[in-house]
């Protein structure tokens, strides 16, 4: 019956991948973290999308608030108002966050972040410390708010009657029109705007042998094309080009050659504002150093990004950004 394919998984391999945590606490590692520590880690690693108080930024998820809204129109579903198990928060933060830098948080850091999210939802006091030991004692407000799929009992009897075929109703009136809301994307002109052939050119652009000299006048189109690919890593937070707007990160048009921290309407971190006051200018050298390791270059800045470790990637993305000067 068994084919003898595959090989036994080694214990260290299982340990490396089996990180999931269940509501009964199965899988929780030893460790602990305080609300106080969590506030700092959250500000560094999470606030860029989820806000300093877990209130959410733009369309990114709100993690706090929404108590007693589940039976209202447009309920606000957060860890506090909706999530039935605390283990889910721990598990998700540990395995899937921060966005773009996943699986880098230590167990203690995750305990601290989860403690801070609980605090943001007014579920614990500011001196609370979450640990493996007290984890199962935390009560989640909506723990009893779920029922197992009951469609078979509640819906199937209603939706299995022989359907009417003729003269099923007297009148048909329009009660709602999509054109009134007008939220459909405009699809008139975009067709074939970006042909697959162009994408293939970018794909095929060979990696640059070495980065261009710091202040070359003309941009190498191959480098720009390669940089556009590298920029995919940045697009979660940054926009560049015509119509670009501030998102999680500031718009990057004209970033090359200008003083740091100068985009209108973007709320920079204190350290970025201070660096700007000190005269930090984004040239090839400073941008490259920043992009190599954002957290080391400017500790406590908002950019939650692991960095571009390859010199050629940094040079390419800088060339790409320069094409929007």
């Amino acid at each position: 019956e068994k084919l003898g394919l595959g090989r036994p998984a080694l214990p260290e391999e299982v340990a490396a991948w089996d990180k999931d945590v269940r509501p009964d606490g199965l899988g929780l590692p030893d460790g602990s973290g305080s609300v106080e520590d969590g506030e700092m880690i959250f500000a560094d690693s999470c606030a860029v999308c989820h806000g300093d108080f877990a209130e959410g930024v733009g369309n990114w998820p709100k993690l706090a608030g929404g108590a007693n809204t589940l039976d209202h129109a447009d309920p606000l579903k957060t860890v506090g108002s909706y999530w039935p198990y605390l283990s889910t928060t721990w598990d998700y933060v540990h395995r899937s966050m921060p966005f773009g830098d996943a699986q880098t948080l230590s167990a203690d850091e995750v305990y601290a972040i989860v403690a801070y999210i609980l605090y943001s939802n007014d579920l614990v006091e500011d001196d609370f410390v979450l640990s493996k030991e007290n984890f199962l004692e935390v009560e989640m407000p909506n723990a009893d708010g779920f029922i197992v799929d009951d469609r078979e009992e509640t819906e199937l009897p209603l939706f299995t009657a022989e359907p009417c075929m003729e003269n099923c109703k007297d009148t048909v009136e329009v009660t709602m029109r999509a054109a009134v809301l007008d939220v459909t994307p405009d699809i008139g002109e975009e067709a074939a705007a970006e042909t697959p052939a162009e994408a293939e050119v970018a794909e095929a652009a060979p990696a640059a042998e070495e980065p261009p000299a710091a202040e070359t006048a003309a941009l190498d189109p191959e480098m720009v094309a390669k940089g556009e690919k590298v920029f995919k890593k940045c697009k979660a937070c940054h926009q560049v080009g015509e119509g670009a707007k501030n998102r999680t990160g500031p718009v990057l048009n004209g970033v090359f050659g200008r003083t740091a921290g100068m985009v209108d309407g973007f709320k920079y971190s204190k350290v970025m504002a201070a660096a700007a006051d000190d005269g930090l200018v984004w040239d090839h050298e400073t941008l490259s150093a920043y992009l190599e390791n954002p957290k080391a270059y400017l500790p406590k800045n908002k950019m939650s990004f692991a960095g571009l470790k390859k010199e050629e990637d940094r040079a390419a993305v800088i060339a790409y950004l320069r094409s929007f000067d």
Partner: protein
Amino acid sequence: AGDPLITEIQPWAQGLGEGVDATPYGLPIKYEGDVVRRNVEWLTADTISSINFTPIHALDGTITPQGCAFERHHSGAIELRKEDYRLMINGLVDTPLVFTYADLERFPRVTRTYFLECAANTGMEWAGAQLNGSQFTHGMIHNMEYTGVTLRTLLEEAGVKPEGKWVMVEGADASSNARSIPLEKAMDDCLVAFKANGEALRMEHGYPVRLCVPGWEGNMWVKWLRRIEVGDKPWESREETSKYTDTLEDGTSRKWTWVMDAKSVVTSPSPQMPITHGKGPLVITGLAWSGRGAIARVDVSVDGGKNWKEARLAAPGQDMALTRFYLDHDWDGSEMFLQSRAIDSTGYVQPTKTQLREVRGLNSIYHNNCIQTWWVKPSGEAENVEVS
């Protein structure tokens, strides 16, 4: 004078076309450049964690080409080489195992066609008619012929212990999407797939290996499948508690609403596919599907549900796969309120929006399988509407 396209020699009839190898992997001709996936920007914060929509309005038949089949990523589509691929089975098994891609190719293989529908498909329409086009209202779906190994085969290779009742399936990308599946379903028809429509999966659909969970919501079809853990209880991951749960009017929420209810939509005419030929013969066509079995019948109404006609199925319905239907109609040029109604092999009849709202309220987000209405005007243009 006759039609110059006939009476005059055309360039393509005189000169030469492209040679073989002009496109080693062929793409649609440029004139079909508008048959593409599209997203709705305001829906999500960013395209890295987002969804787009299959251009179902412009397709026919039932198989969705991979190149325009909708995408849903939680941390972006990753590039994972076959050589770097590993699949682990651990937990309550006799022997935790690791398979390479080459190992998977040596197990007995099966080929099956299934639809994959996102639980949020049509979710924007709960509160009212919103989006003008079947691509946007119903395009979070695709239907492919998958080739792979049954999950049962792999689980039996590892040996499930008697106390094992659930499996957790996890992806290799940064989102680590994890879903709990009852062992019964895992042993029934789930498929660990490495080919779709005859060729390798596309990166955006989980290359090199994804899971198929026939008839159940798309989020469970974990892409870049890297681990299957057997346990005695469900995991209650983020995607099965905070998301993919359906809040009812009183504030309680249904969980484990895995199966996709029977559903259908007229794909043409529709807002993106206006009638341009005036009155007379008109092909009304659409898609129907059910997560509980096969489509048995589809009815079409041109008067907003007053009267219905049984449509013609392109082929007999197949379990958990898309079915194409046609109604050959003689359009008199007056306005129509086009609807379709699917009936599956269990006798389930696709409900109206009103019927669904009476049971579920407006806050469910997911699993909206109501009857859709297109208001086709005498001009041939169509609009997404709700009717009494």
